[in-house]
């Protein structure tokens, strides 16, 4: 299989281009995106949905890639699993990357199953040095195979292990240092997990290696009182917007997008919601110009 044209050296500067403000690509919006070319800077596609033989998904994806920069986001890499890395999955991932030429490829800092099974959930890892070493080694294998650095996303979690010996952000930092990978910071997930586990969300943002944060996710969730479930089926709430403002005031401007996976509204609503992120970025730029770098398109 050929290497991707835009694969970057693994020893290059940590961060890639800032793409601006994007949305998750959803089937409900294919036609409108192609017909109206809405003001979205880039789109994130769910890798597994396009690891298919043919038909509508790839047909529309090819057309969309002609018009928008895209990034690939997966859910089944299972980077933290103790089972063998699925080479067929990696092969198909690279094949898809060859086809769509994404600005980058991401997945989650979690495990999804062992012994050949997939629980289709982003299951939490115990935050230990043993786990960090294990995950970092596997990231190395994946990055070597793909010929590029990958982004890993912090997940929302509902349970903590008694085995954990450090905070989630210390765990993430350790992995980044050992694996030399990039981060997809999900600000909503930080909020959800900080609520569920009673930690300071700002400490999380302060604690991760900021020069490795390549992308930010924003989404909605459901608050059940004692705990929050991450559902991606509602608009982003104000406290998460506040946390986003805090994040970019610390990190500088980072490619930002809204993830909506269920209860999908008309595209115009999401484009409007994305404007909130743009306004926050402008506001941060006004009071802290050094923190914000203007977006530049790579296409």
């Amino acid at each position, binding site marked *: 299989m050929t290497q991707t044209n835009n694969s970057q050296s693994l020893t290059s500067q940590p961060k890639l281009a800032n793409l601006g403000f994007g949305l998750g690509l959803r089937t409900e919006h294919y036609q409108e995106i192609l017909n109206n070319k809405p003001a979205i800077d880039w789109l994130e596609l769910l890798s*597994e*949905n396009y*690891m*298919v*033989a*043919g*038909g*509508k*998904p*790839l*047909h529309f994806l090819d057309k969309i890639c002609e018009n928008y920069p895209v990034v690939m986001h997966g859910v*089944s890499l299972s980077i933290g*699993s*103790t089972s063998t890395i*699925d080479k067929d*999955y990696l092969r198909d991932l690279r094949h898809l990357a060859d086809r769509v030429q994404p600005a980058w490829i991401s997945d989650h800092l979690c*495990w999804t*199953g*062992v*012994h*050949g*099974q*997939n*629980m*289709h*959930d982003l*299951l939490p*890892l*115990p935050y*230990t040095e*043993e*786990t960090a070493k*294990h995950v970092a080694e596997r990231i190395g294998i994946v990055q070597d195979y793909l010929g590029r650095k990958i982004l890993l996303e912090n997940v929302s979690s*509902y*349970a*903590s*292990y*008694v*085995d954990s010996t450090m905070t989630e952000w210390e765990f993430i930092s350790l992995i980044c240092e050992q694996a030399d990978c990039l981060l997809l910071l999900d600000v909503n997930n930080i909020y959800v997990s900080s609520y*569920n586990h*009673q930690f300071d969300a700002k400490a999380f943002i302060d604690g991760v290696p900021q020069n490795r944060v390549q992308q930010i996710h924003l989404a909605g969730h459901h608050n059940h009182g*004692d*705990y929050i*479930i991450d559902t991606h089926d509602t608009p982003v709430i104000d406290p998460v917007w506040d946390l986003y403002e805090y994040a970019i005031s610390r990190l500088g401007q980072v490619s930002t997008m809204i993830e909506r996976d269920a209860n999908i509204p008309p595209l115009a609503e999401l484009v409007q919601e994305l404007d909130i992120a743009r306004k926050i970025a402008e506001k941060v730029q006004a009071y802290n110009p050094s923190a914000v770098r203007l977006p530049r398109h790579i296409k």
Partner: protein
Amino acid sequence: MSNLEQIQTDFQAFLIDETKGAAFKSRIIDDAKVGAAKRLGIYYDAYRFRIIEALATVYPKLHVVLGNDLFDKTARSYIDQNPSTYRNMRWMGGNMQAHLQQTLPQYPIAAEMAAFEWGLSLAFDAEDASILTLTDLAEVPLETWADLKFVFHPSLHLLPLQWNAVQIWNALDKEETPPAIAKTNEPCLIWRIGIDLHSGLNSHFRSLEAAEFSAIQLAISGASFGVLCEQLQDNLSEEQATIQAAQYVSTWLNDGLITRI
């Protein structure tokens, strides 16, 4: 087994069967606010809800036919017996027809509805292929027709249905009152219209008579046009059989089922 491997093995065992979760609960930090049991319960429930939702997406009319409660019960027993080995939940429903034949044998329409909807979902993202047209075939010299073999579109599925699942599906799709369950013995073809023929790329289906079903089965298996004619001669004269075979091929071409010869 490493500590991490043990945790993952036990966590997964709990998700699949919570009765195995008692020991694993001790690996989770307990607290007064939510509690370890409830925290693990979130994962236990989410595992099922997520897959039930994926099954409902692949089997929307089966869901209607069974109703919420029976669909939910069926999906849960399906999940228990078919832990996913797939990277995408979209592929999880492949054993539903067999599962329904086992769990609801008194209600055979359910298994056939599942077979039909699974066929639609397979056609949706099957491999692309360009379509042969009548004009392409007109260039073939008549004397070589007997040896002609046909390659069919990768999205094509043949279903030997006994019940009127397709008619019920159609009515539900048009939000009309579905017909009563009845035995029709009408087989069905499912395929996707290729890009070259139309721009739709949608899954299509049609019922067909037993004779055409046998003929297309034979053609798919690699039989030549001449063999098709011979088989049709069981019930027709030689001339009628040739005309009938030519009509079938013409229909298959118009439907966009044949990709090359």
